């Protein structure tokens, strides 16, 4: 483990009324969409950005997202991270 691994992705800032930040790692997302079904608010939709296999990633609607982290837990490739502020 010589050098630090750099991850690419995008950030959806201030979801859940500004209580959390939502991150997507596009190097890891394979676009399976399992998180979209598991989301309790059904607020995830396909993004314009593409992931590892050039398939669309997901992004949450910042108004509807409650920052619960279910998507991050269910993601088989740990491509989602929710940081509570």
């Amino acid at each position, binding site marked *: *483990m010589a050098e630090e*691994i*750099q*991850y*690419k*992705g*995008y*950030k959806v800032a201030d979801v859940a009324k500004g209580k959390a930040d939502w*991150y997507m*790692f*596009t*190097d*890891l997302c*394979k*676009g*399976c*969409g*399992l998180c*979209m*079904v*598991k989301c309790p608010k059904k607020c995830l939709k396909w993004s314009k*950005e593409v992931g*590892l*296999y050039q*398939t669309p990633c997901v992004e949450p609607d910042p108004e509807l997202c409650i920052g619960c982290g279910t998507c*991050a*837990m*269910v*993601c*088989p*490739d*740990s*491509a989602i*991270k929710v*940081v509570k502020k």
Partner: protein
Amino acid sequence: MITTLDVKPDLAKAQNAAAGASKFCPGCGHGMILKTLAKTIDELELNERAVFGCDIGCSLLSWNYMNLDTVQTHHGRTTPVIYGVTRANPGTVGIAYMGDGGGLAIGAQHLVNAATRSENLLVIVANNTNYGMTGGQMSPTTMPGQKTETTPYGRDCEVTGRPAKAAELVASIADPNKSYVARASVSNLRKLNTVFKKALKNVADGGYSFVEVLSVCPLNWRTNNEGTWERLKTMEECFEVKEFLVKEGLE
């Protein structure tokens, strides 16, 4: 817009971050099971003691998934290889990870004998009701009426018999004084975490644990994201999700 992020993904210490994205197909259940297993190993601080063995089939793609000593063997032989390790080095927490094809069809003899003798290891069987790596053929656990590559009209139990139920099988032959046998599902990863925690604690104390995990295979099932979770629900009706055998005093 995609930029270089200053945060890191939530990877457990027992997971190999240097390997990058896992080798599994999009939406594969193995990712969810192994991620939960790695998290549980972190929580119980077994990183130095654990040895991970993977089997033939899709489960072999986990050969560099874990940041643990790993060995890969053939067709259910993961079970004897790992209990060989735990016999030679007492105190090692051996984990044998396999699919339903390796564990219940070709390697069933090892599973049965290890369960009868209640060897000191944790056996995890990921059940996705088909042979994933070879293209989705019928496996021992294919549900009645399920369409696969080799049962295009649905599995006919008159011809091919009933599906194998691994957890019931193992629970009936394992030693009740030192065993933990359960079936879990990837639909509830928090529950899966508690099941793995009990199983690993039992193995760390010298017992035998068996966990069958109902998994998903979107590519061979030919389901979209909603269809995958729907199919998993029908699997949970066919295979009962519960603890079958819990050693007395295990929490």
